[in-house]
């Protein structure tokens, strides 16, 4: 990627509740709020924060499978529903499986870089609890290659990552790896308990690691993973505004209310190819490398990371892909607490996909909102310290099994 031709900022982030099992309000037997509710709630909050829809030049919606979960396509046309001020303005929707939200951010950034917009409203949304998990698995399997669906597991993606876990167990030891998984889960839930919008906010389990070490039961789920290794089935939306300096000025927003995007990468791997090595997420490794390079920093400059822990094994493999641990040493790095909020490099400070939730198409935007909150001291009880000598954060949003990657580097803006 060439150097960014102008500065790009994010501001006015907002997350709805991640709704689903775990939340007291969730009742699958009742009609639950739909796409419209989440789009409105998130979009209106961001619009209010910048001072009105007249300041928005464009909208982008990230969404994976509303066409099946909600029998609804054409999400761009929902933008004017959020605010009349968006009527007759451009809006597009993006799809790249669970990286749809990350792609939406990139489209917004490109418009600002192309100087066709000064402020772009980016919303990620997914409402998945419209079907039972066994049917949701069919829908989410669309993130893989359909030709492989027949031979795949009933719970397709848990099956794919269970295979990764199995290969990892074989190479580095089952108990050793599962200890790392259990710690990843425990940290995710502990962080979620600090964030009122998190799906696991109300979780009261005492011994989280013991729970996570429940033996997998292949009769009912996968060979190597349990439900505690999985991200949640979630309904929710996240929104944020991508802005140029001019846009911020127009809206009267100071830089202290923003994060600046200093590097990013987006890349694809062939969906029809099996991974070369199940114990490595090579696309993610390449994406992080490129994003850090364009930002001109190393991992030692990062103070927090939001990574795509759709499964505990994905969390562990991402620690290795980013470069904090060598292959096979991820479980040790995690088990020693280095990814916890007080550790060397806090990961997923509001719980990530396992603790906060995973409204698939929204997750990429949610990551950006979380880092924006941390960098602008808006994270409430989940706030971590951002040291002055490490003013950077990074998000890694993944679609499918290491196929679509969006990595973004953020920094606290310098005046």
């Amino acid at each position: 990627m060439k150097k960014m031709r102008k500065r790009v900022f994010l501001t006015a982030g907002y997350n709805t509740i991640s709704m689903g099992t775990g939340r007291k309000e969730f009742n699958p037997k009742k009609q639950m709020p739909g796409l419209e509710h989440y789009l409105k709630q998130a979009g209106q909050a961001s619009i209010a924060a910048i001072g009105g829809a007249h300041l928005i030049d464009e909208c982008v919606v990230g969404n994976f499978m509303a066409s099946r979960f909600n029998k609804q396509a054409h999400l761009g046309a929902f933008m004017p529903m959020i605010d009349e001020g968006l009527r007759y303005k451009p809006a597009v929707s993006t799809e790249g499986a669970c990286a749809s939200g990350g792609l939406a951010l990139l489209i917004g950034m490109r418009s600002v870089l192309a100087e066709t917009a000064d402020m772009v409203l980016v919303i990620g949304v997914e409402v998945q609890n419209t079907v039972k998990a066994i049917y949701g698995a069919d829908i989410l399997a669309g993130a893989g290659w359909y030709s492989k669906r027949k031979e795949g597991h009933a719970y397709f993606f848990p099956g794919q990552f269970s295979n990764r876990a199995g290969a990892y167990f074989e190479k580095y030891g089952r108990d050793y790896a599962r200890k790392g998984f259990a710690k990843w889960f425990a940290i995710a839930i502990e962080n979620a308990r600090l964030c009122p919008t998190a799906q696991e906010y109300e979780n009261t389990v005492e011994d989280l690691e013991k729970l996570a070490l429940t033996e997998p039961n292949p009769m009912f789920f996968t060979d190597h993973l349990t439900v505690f290794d999985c991200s949640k089935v979630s309904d929710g939306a996240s929104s944020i505004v991508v802005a140029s300096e001019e846009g911020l000025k127009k809206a009267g927003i100071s830089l202290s209310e923003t994060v600046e995007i200093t590097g990013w990468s987006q890349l694809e791997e062939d969906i029809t190819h099996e991974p070369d090595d199940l114990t490595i997420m090579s696309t993610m490794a390449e994406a992080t490398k490129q994003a850090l390079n364009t930002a001109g920093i190393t991992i030692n400059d990062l103070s927090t990371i939001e990574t795509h822990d759709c499964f505990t094994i994905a969390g562990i493999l991402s620690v290795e892909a980013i470069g904090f641990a060598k292959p096979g040493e991820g479980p040790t790095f995690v088990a020693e607490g280095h990814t916890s909020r007080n550790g060397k490099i806090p990961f997923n400070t509001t719980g990530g996909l396992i603790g906060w939730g995973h409204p698939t198409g929204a997750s990429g935007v949610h990551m950006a909102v979380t880092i924006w909150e941390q960098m602008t001291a808006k994270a409430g009880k989940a706030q971590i310290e951002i040291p002055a000598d490490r003013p950077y954060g990074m998000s890694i949003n993944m679609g499918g099994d290491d196929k679509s990657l969006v990595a973004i580097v953020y920094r606290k803006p310098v005046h």
Partner: protein
Amino acid sequence: MNYNERLSNVAVLGAAGKMGSGIVLLTVIEMANRCLIEGKDPCEASLHAIDVSPSALNGLMKYLRTQVLKSAEKSTIQLRKWYSGNPALIENEEIINRYVMDVLSVVKPSTRMEAAWDAYVIFEAVSENPDLKVKLFSSINEHNPNQPWFLTNTSSIPIGELNKKAGLNGNIIGLHYYNPPAIQKLLEIITPAEINPHLVEFANQLAGNLQKTVVHANDVAGFIGNGFFMRDILFAVNETMRLTKEMSLPQALYVVDKVSRDYLVRPMGIFQLSDYVGIDVCVFIMAVMNERLTGENVQCSLFEQLMKQEVMGGQFADGNQKDGIFKYIKGQIVAVYDLNTKQYIELKAIADVGDSFLGPMPASWQPWKLAIKSRTREIMLQQYFDELKQMQTTGAVLAKAYAINAKQIGQQLVRNGVAHKTDDVNTVMTTGFFHAFGPVNDYL
């Protein structure tokens, strides 16, 4: 003929009833699964669902569709393997829908008894009427050239007697499912003295495949489940009548029901359970037992009077509780029947007086719902009974007498050769009746 061949043609009598529909569900899933395991099309098997009521059969088909779908959604991992050879079925939803279709295609609803004439196995779940059962069995046996096997769901009539009267040459066994059969784990298998050993083998294999908790009972009227339950009712009614010397009948019914539920840590009180089963059903079962057991009076005039006044309990087709000894709103007791005025009396006033009559609950008491979930259930129960032992409140005195009587019923079932061992009685009561502990214990 092996197990799978036997299961290729089955009839269920009384198929649309409460018990019958559950038996159809379990059996048809087992039949279809056997075909799929062998790589055969389930359509090759037939289950003739026979019932007198066409509208009830419609209800049965609706029930089956819902339940088979639920079952398929829970076993999709297995189904994907069975249907792996069909390239047209890719998504879970396609496989689940196909399975539901395949299972339902096995069921042939019918109002005519002739449908059972070519079956190899006949499950029976008609009403608890010995003459009706004998008539059906002998007629089918006469017209069916396959020498079919009969598996009766009777909960009280001795199997040997049915065998003899219907002339079945030992081709009958008791398979007493508990309500609802699809959910209840317990299966009481009753083997009479004269029985085809292959039928016993078949019944055991079926029970195993259905993942039931099996208790083998001897062929004595009432078997273990009702042998216990009916005697428990008789004791409770006696206690109630004794209490009417100092209080009204509705008041006494409330008190004894509370003692049997709360103090005995059971999911329902004895009279609520009687309503659940049906007062009329209890009276029929007692009549069957009373005619066949010597030296024991198994009769309950209170229940007979209630039945005369058409106070019967039981359930509506949708599973909701009908009014009986108690009146129910959304499954909760709200009033108690008064035999004299033929009116229900609101619970509130009765409960206040009844509760103060019984006195405070022991401090270590926990309701059934918590007790069954407790990981230290035994320790908790021992503490509770230790405390109860020391207490002299009316509630404690009644509860101790109730528990001691329950233990005696259990021991008597073993002494009279109904149950092989007291553990079997305890299994029936904890599994079939969801009691938090077996009646034969050393807590007191």
